[in-house]
């Protein structure tokens, strides 16, 4: 008699390289299919939705330029997270680190508008890096000293930083000439990043992002410290026996990933808005989308360049979709969540075979 079917996973003896490389893209396609089905179930015509979505993100030069614009903060934060996740440091607070970076840069821009551009802009990036890094150091210290789970603390700090930004733009930093909007005053020209032609692509940040991706790739693959990160993540026991300091890895990895998210925040205020605004106005969840960027790239910083472009497109397409169909802003999270789940599963299926077993019950 046939009983309940049960799924079993069997490790593949050899996982072909093409399968490992292709798996994320196949998962992405399957995820889009699932989203289509989910949309149909929610009463949204899926084909129309996808059409609007693709047109919005990649269908025009404006859409493409916006996709690049949104991929900038994703590269910076995503590269940082791929470093942290490799060491199994679950920094899921990049969103907060980004906001703190934006806040620190704004503080400089508002305080020293008279500084020359060549001094002020680099100083703002530095401030954003240090601010984001120190913000990420809080969960690192809590984990190192008291073994407190960094997932919860890094996320709590997102809520705290978002309330801090709200406090600033509704209160002490509110610009007088902003007609009651929760914005700071507009930055002086010396604090504004140059853009590419008619687009909103603030190319200095883009170049910085690409540079960082390459540097972190070299760091992970070619240096002793990168080796320690990988060993710490894959086999903490072995790392300890080999005399590697978990503490050092944890602190450095959190500092760097937080700092990079902070840089992303600087790019948004200095390159896009020219002011600090309410938190949702600065970032539509870049810090969370960056988690998918990192994971989709299989934690490879160079791969993160490609995946951040894809997910930047997702954000732009999502916007177009929301406008066309009158959907709420949270719609983008349906994409994010579904894609993340499928990428996770796909990652696994590249390494395992699924077998259905029929358990015989007498």
């Amino acid at each position, binding site marked *: 008699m046939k009983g309940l079917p049960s799924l079993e996973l069997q490790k593949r003896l050899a996982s072909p390289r093409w399968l490992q490389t292709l798996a994320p893209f196949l998962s992405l396609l399957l995820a889009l299919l699932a989203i289509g089905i989910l949309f149909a179930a929610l009463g949204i015509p899926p084909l129309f939705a996808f059409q609007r979505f693709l047109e919005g993100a990649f269908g025009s030069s404006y859409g493409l330029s916006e996709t690049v614009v949104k991929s900038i903060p994703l590269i910076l934060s995503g590269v940082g997270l791929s470093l942290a996740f490799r060491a199994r440091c679950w920094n899921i607070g990049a969103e907060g680190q980004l906001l703190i970076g934006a806040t620190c840069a704004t503080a400089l821009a508002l305080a020293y508008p008279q500084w020359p551009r060549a001094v002020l802009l680099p100083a703002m990036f530095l401030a954003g890096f240090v601010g984001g890094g120190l913000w990420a150091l809080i969960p690192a210290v809590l984990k190192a000293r008291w073994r407190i789970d960094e997932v919860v603390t890094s996320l709590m700090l997102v809520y705290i930083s978002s309330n801090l930004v709200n406090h600033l733009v509704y209160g002490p930093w509110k610009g007088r000439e902003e007609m009651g909007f929760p914005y700071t005053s507009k930055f002086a020209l010396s604090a504004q990043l140059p853009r590419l032609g008619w687009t909103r692509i603030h190319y200095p940040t883009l170049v910085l992002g690409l540079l960082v991706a390459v540097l972190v790739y070299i760091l992970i693959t070619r240096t002793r410290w990168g080796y320690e990160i990988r060993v710490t993540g894959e086999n903490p026991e072995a790392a300890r026996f080999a005399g590697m300091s978990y503490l050092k890895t944890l602190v450095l990895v959190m500092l760097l990933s937080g700092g990079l998210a902070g840089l992303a925040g600087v790019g948004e205020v200095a390159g896009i808005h020219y002011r600090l605004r309410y938190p949702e106005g600065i970032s539509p969840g870049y810090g969370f989308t960056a988690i998918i960027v990192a994971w989709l790239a299989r934690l490879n910083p160079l791969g993160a360049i490609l995946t951040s472009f894809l997910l930047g497109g997702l954000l732009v397409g999502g916007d177009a979709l929301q406008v066309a169909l009158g959907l709420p802003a949270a719609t983008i999270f349906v994409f994010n*969540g579904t894609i993340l789940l499928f990428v996770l599963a796909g990652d696994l299926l590249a390494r395992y075979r699924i077998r259905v077993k029929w358990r015989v019950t007498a």
Partner: protein
Amino acid sequence: MIDFILSALRAAIPAGTPLLFGTLGEVYAERSGVLNLGVEGMMIMGSVTAFGVVYSTGDVWLGMLAAAMAGALLALIHAFASITLRVNQVVSGLALTMLGLGVSGILGRGYVGRPLAVSVNPVNIPILSDIPVVGPLLFRYDPLVYIALILAPLLWFVLNHTRWGLSLRSVGEDPATADSLGVNVMAVRYLAVTFGGAMAGLGGAYLSIVYAPAWIEGMTAGAGWIVIALTIFSTWDPLRALLGAYLFGGVRVLQYRLQPLGISPNLLAMLPFIFTILILLASAGEAIRRHIGAPRALMQPYSREER
């Protein structure tokens, strides 16, 4: 002053009730060895489902049931991913939260700004509610407060003094041994995670149909993450979850009661989250002193072939 304290205490209990539902569920899931970071997503799916059902049928209990099912359904996704497919539990839970936030936003778009025709009223427990001071403080809440209140000791008893509880705990501590003793590790974990989802769904439902009857996008506003922290604070013990949840209810009440003093509402809104970190600090000290830790097999997928 005494009046202020009494009324704050009175308000803390309902404010802590959604957290209590969620924490009790997460305690069970984690005791079976599965970390589910999707509580925020499951809660908000509960909120929107309950609101939708109560809005169209007027039946509060049907709404609660539907919310529990919605939470459980979402939890099943995590169960399949983390138990059967053995993917990374942190990332899968995060994906669940995103999915819940997104789907609830789409489902709820017709409910924004709509009022509910029915409301859940407090019941005055006869005689007891007439005792001065204690009566109003303890015996005049809505039925769901009492359900959560009774569930805590009940779940504590099941966990610590029944065969089922023993199976659950053994699966979370040492799945290989449990398996060799004939416990179906997979089934126990599936059940625990699904139960956790149902409880989170109930917590979300309490928010949208009792505590602040309305549907607002993203209305759980981090409650699910506080549940994750409370699970750690409660040292995975349903009875201590009671303490943690009401304590947090108190913080939430304080947040609103302090506003008239002229403190920025945005700074006050940080309170629960700062308090969460403090509470984790406090329990970390205690955990080190008393040698209590997370269930030993937490976040460790189980497979016969690879044990």
